[in-house]
């Protein structure tokens, strides 16, 4: 899975920029309201952390 055909820049940056936009939305939502907005804010900001844990689980390991 590690060697792919070259991907266009658009594809490479799509997910990172989407995540950054979601984090930004989360920060603003948390600031502009209480209640459900705070919950959505926490979920949006926790998303990168959860994604990292998921990819960490799927990391390729040295055969031993």
């Amino acid at each position, binding site marked *: 899975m590690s060697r792919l055909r070259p991907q266009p820049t658009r594809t490479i940056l799509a997910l990172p920029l989407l995540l950054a936009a979601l984090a930004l939305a989360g920060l603003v939502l948390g*600031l502009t*309201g209480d209640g459900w907005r705070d919950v959505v804010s926490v979920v949006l900001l926790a998303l990168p952390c959860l994604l990292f844990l998921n990819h960490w689980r799927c990391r390729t390991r040295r055969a031993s």
Partner: protein
Amino acid sequence: MRNRAITAVAWVHKWSSLVCTLALFMLCLTGLPLIFHDEIEGLSGDTALQGAASARTGQPLDRIVGAALTDYAKAAGNPGVPLFIGFSPDNPLITVTVGPRPDAPEAEMRLFSYDRATGTAVGEVAQGGVMDFLLQLHTDLLLGLPGMLFLGAMAVLFVVALISGVVLYVPFMRRLAFGTLRHDRSARVRNLDQHNLLGVLALGWTLVIGLTGAINAFADPLTAAWRTGELQSMVAGQDGQTALAPADYGSIDTAMARAQAALPGQMPQFIGFPGGAWSSARHYAIFFQGDTPLTSHLLTPALVDAESGALIDVRPMPATMQALMLSKPLHFGDYGGLALKLVWAALTLATLWVLWTGLVLWLGKRR
């Protein structure tokens, strides 16, 4: 050409990161406990006062300030002048800052707190604890304004490093799926994958922290510019330059009543006394906060002549000051409860790991 562009961005990424790395390690390590300052300070066992918010009602302000001046004279051994009054939006706690003269520097200020519902003293607010030290280190490296501006420059470099990092991310990921962590390869590849993935995942948050940190670093010059520009135009023709002797200060309660009549329903957050960094030489500047979660971070000052009690002007803060006021909560992450703080801490740890792997990658390349 393309390769040359990548080399140039790599150079920018390397140097912008290296120069700010040491400062960022310090900022992350001091920032981590600061996220939880409310919880840590709450451990000392002080329970919040019960009753109506001091921003709404309670004992007369003149009486509270009188008590603070008496307490200051007793504690400091010389008479003082009031500098600030701070209100609470949720409990009767009220704090009065007193200093030796109207333009006393922060180091000479002392804070006294009271229960506004009853007028009883809660005690002098102890300064110089561990959390105060960490905050000072985080804000200005204990160096005052030069330290603040230095850290502001480091924050700007951090933002440059983030942007150049994203540009470099593209060629590195050309043939890799998002999130690839090749742990079956050399330590260098392992560090590179972790650096790239964590860096790009935390990007939105780190950009905001970097930018708001840079804005906060310029808080003092921005406030000074507001004071000499906007504030002076608010009191234009009102003889705002001539200092008013503290003995001639009129009733704060009268001033508050006049200001509240102009801003019905809004809660005061603090009062800046004449001659301080937040007011003119002869006015009480009463800062009101809005009543929605967003506008509660934005302040509207009402200026009242401290001698006559006449309301001079009410005007929202200019855009630069609004940006500064919104930068504080966005930087500290203290507006969304404990869950948000935990996420803030996790993202700080992620940033530390990106810094560390970046440093290791640079050291490995030099060898």
